[in-house]
């Protein structure tokens, strides 16, 4: 489990090696964010456009404390000479007023801005990928050729969101250049009741007026349709977006193959875009396409890095007229999530969790005057630990005594090398442990009842057997977790030495 960065890590340590690269990245990207920032910065010797290293900026202005400047420069791109560093930390990074968390309207606005279902006005950090997808679609549409594209990436990396954006940009492009707008069909594969139903949907969209021919399957009809030249030349191209493509994988992989083969037929009008998580889906499940030289183009969405997460969070909060989070809190969140999975949904969820921490803190303390109303690093740290904590240690500590003794005897038994045992053996070990403390052991029926309760909770795993005594038992929990949980009780400490 990745460890949380310390709460009180000084900004000096945060401003580590990559001090100049985030600035460079921001310069390259064409986001409106940067334009806004650049236009609002008053000219000062440390302007990022000059690409000077912030260390030189520190030497220029002796008033400011070193640590704050380097950190704020790197992250915020704004410097104002007049304010003292302490006030700087409390103020917003773009000099916005601090929000009032007791105002319900502001609270709900902030929560809505951070909700997963709110799609932002601008999608940042995915410009390259979106450009590639849009180029591919435009190329296919201009040449009126069929093609296939495969989008892969971990969950929460913005694949479906980018696709929506590309659809919109295609519409704009079609209007501008006067080209034809394709028919767009979006299919969510988990919602199909059977895998071959995807062909029904494609057929239905491409020929809505024709009644479904009952004699041949939709797949055959589509294949027939695309193998001969159209009589009427007005047939439009169709853009098929298949979300969560791996739900179509069956044992014989026929459906997936046929779907991609539709794009290889001579007169096909289908542009197929498949979205899934596995990077090598095309290689593993569609080997035949390689031989036909029509492997789909692969666009992979990498997991978000720390800087990207910070940019995205800030962009969401940009629309609000007040400042909500302290920048260190956002950085802590981004760092932890990027190290764990790079999943944007998780980062947004943790931000909302931190706001709830602030709310509870304000509710508990009656006077709200002295408290800083921004979400601080400690709120974020609590929200992070809640997100990544497993409830195992707490549960083991609150188990009744005999169940704890059972876990202890299981650990002792498995130390000798075997990884699973029977209830009869566990009983013997349990009786031995009980004898050493003069606690009267319970009988074997009660023991197997307790083992069943522990198995229900997922701490042990029990096998099946006709005879109760011969059921196999394995530990599902790490031995280190059990040791950590029981270390407070002296008897277990001695026993598990």
């Amino acid at each position, binding site marked *: 489990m990745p460890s949380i960065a310390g709460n009180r890590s000084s900004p000096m340590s945060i401003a580590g090696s990559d001090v100049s690269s985030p600035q460079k990245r921001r310069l390259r990207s064409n986001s409106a964010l940067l334009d806004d920032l650049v236009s609002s910065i008053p000219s000062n010797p440390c302007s990022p456009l000059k690409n000077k290293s912030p260390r030189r900026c520190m030497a220029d202005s002796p008033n400011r404390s070193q640590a704050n400047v380097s950190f704020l420069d790197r992250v915020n791109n704004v410097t104002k000479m007049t304010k003292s560093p302490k006030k700087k930390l409390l103020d917003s990074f773009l000099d916005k007023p601090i929000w009032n968390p007791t105002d319900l309207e502001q609270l*709900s606005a902030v929560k809505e801005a951070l909700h997963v279902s709110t799609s932002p006005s601008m999608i940042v950090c995915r410009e390259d990928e979106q450009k590639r997808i849009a180029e591919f679609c435009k190329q296919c549409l201009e040449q009126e050729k069929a093609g296939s594209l495969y989008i892969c990436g971990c969950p929460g990396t913005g694949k479906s969101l980018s696709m929506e954006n590309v659809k919109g940009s295609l519409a704009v492009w079609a209007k501008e250049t006067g080209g034809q707008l394709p028919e767009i069909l979006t299919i969510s594969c988990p919602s199909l009741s059977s895998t071959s139903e995807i062909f029904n949907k494609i057929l239905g969209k491409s020929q809505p007026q024709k009644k479904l021919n009952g004699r041949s399957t939709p797949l055959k009809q589509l294949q027939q349709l695309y193998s001969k030249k159209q009589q009427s030349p007005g047939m439009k191209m169709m853009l098929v977006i298949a979300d*969560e493509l791996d739900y179509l994988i069956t044992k014989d992989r026929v459906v997936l193959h046929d779907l991609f083969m539709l794009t290889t037929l001579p007169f096909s009008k289908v542009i197929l875009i498949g979205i899934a998580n596995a990077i090598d889906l095309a290689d593993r499940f569609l080997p035949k396409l390689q031989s036909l030289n029509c492997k789909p183009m692969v666009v992979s969405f990498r997991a978000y890095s720390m800087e990207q997460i910070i940019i995205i969070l800030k962009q969401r909060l940009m629309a609000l007229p007040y400042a909500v989070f302290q920048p260190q809190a956002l950085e802590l969140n981004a760092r932890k999530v990027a190290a764990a999975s790079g999943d944007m949904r*998780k980062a947004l*969820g943790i931000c909302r969790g931190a706001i709830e921490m602030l709310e509870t803190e304000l509710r508990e303390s009656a006077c709200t005057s002295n408290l800083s109303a921004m979400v601080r690093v400690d709120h974020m740290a609590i929200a992070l630990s809640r997100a990544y904590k497993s409830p*195992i240690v707490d549960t083991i500590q609150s188990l009744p005594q005999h169940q704890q003794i059972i876990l202890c005897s299981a650990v002792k038994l498995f130390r000798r090398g075997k990884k699973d045992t029977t209830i009869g053996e566990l009983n013997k070990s349990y009786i031995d442990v009980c004898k050493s403390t003069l606690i009267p052991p319970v009988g074997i029926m009660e023991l197997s009842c307790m083992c069943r309760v522990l198995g229900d909770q997922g*701490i042990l795993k029990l096998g099946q057997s006709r005879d109760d005594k011969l059921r196999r038992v394995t530990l599902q929990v790490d031995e280190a977790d059990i040791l950590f949980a029981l270390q407070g009780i002296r008897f277990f400490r001695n026993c598990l030495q």
Partner: protein
Amino acid sequence: MGRRTAEEAQVLLRRRLCDPNFIFSVFSDSPDSNYSKLKFIVSSSVTEACNNSMLLLGPRGCGKIAVLDLVLEDLLKEYPEMISVIKLNGLLHCDDNCAVKEIARQLCIEHELMFSKMASYDDNSQFMIAMLRECGLAHKTVVFILDEFDLFAQGKQRLLYSLLDAMQSVSSQAVVIGVSCRLDADQLLEKRVRSRFSHRKLLFLPPPKDDLQRLLKHILLLPTDSSLPHDYVTEFNSRISNILADKRFIEVTDKLSDSDSTFSNFLRFLFSAVSYIDLRSGFMTLDNFKSALSTIQRQPKLDCLKDCSILELYMMVCMKRLEVKEQGSYNFNSVMKEYKSIHDSFQTSDNYSRTVCIRAFEHLLDRQLIEFADRGHNQSIEFRSVKLLISSSELHQGLKSNRSCPVSYLGFGSSNSSKTNGILKDTKYVVVETKSVQHYED
């Protein structure tokens, strides 16, 4: 007159014990409790019209569903038209088709629409998505309760995916609450589903000791403003307070919670204790609690031992002695030898013939107090090795509780055959052990 008030009091107490609202309302006042946390999360989702998902985890019998029901009841009173509740159970609706059909049926009942049993999976899921959108427009939150959540996480998890995916759009307002006893329920989810599921988890744990004391006082003390006569109530309450402070009562509750400390076990214990109230006196005593404990912690082998005949007990003691003498395997003949040796050295009055002993041996086999240690069917019963299926402490307790056990035991269970008192008395309840010697002399 006294009997009727006692009965009334008993009925009142039993009714309290069967009402989960009454029991869990004790813990609902503190802001740190699971009740208030759950209520805060659900009510904030309702008032702010946003989607949310969470997991309630904890061992069985710790009150997850009870607290959830309490929270929903309170919220339905506060926001009458803004919540509709859909309940699914992993044991009943584990199949996706079944689950979606059940969701559609419950939605139809809530909104008074006609439900068609012929609708297919597609129709039902389209209906569900359309209803979610409609409810979102009408600012009504749909709360999905998924009981036995870990069973929904088997297979391809389509239902979970489609529910959570529907919640990712702005137009729907839903809260998904999963209830499970597996602590690693969120690790069972596929990564797509896990990414869409928020990380909120509420842990329900068995109560610590002082919470149990509070609960006892809350349940067992009769209310002063009920229809029962005032002096009876005060007398009853003062006796209860005395019992609760008694050290022996604390031993009883400790013994109960050492093996199973969940709420449901504790309530069962209290119900049993209340049912043992002697209706003539009308008050609860410590013995009520002790007999309730023994009904809950039953030992079937002990009950069996209580009814054994003397010869059968004799044979088991012989086998125990052979075990103590480190003789790993023994059969009927060696047991007979031991029996004879005891008879010779101590001149007991019980001396039965071999055939009677074989009959007793077969009885023991039938009762499953002993069993054959090998699998050979060719040999006769006298030569096959046997082993005892009860431990020495169980045997010891069984001998103590057997009413007609006239023999005293020699070097029984501990390694001190020299320290035996070879006292053979025709007594009831004679137990000789090295440390604690209790002789009931005739």
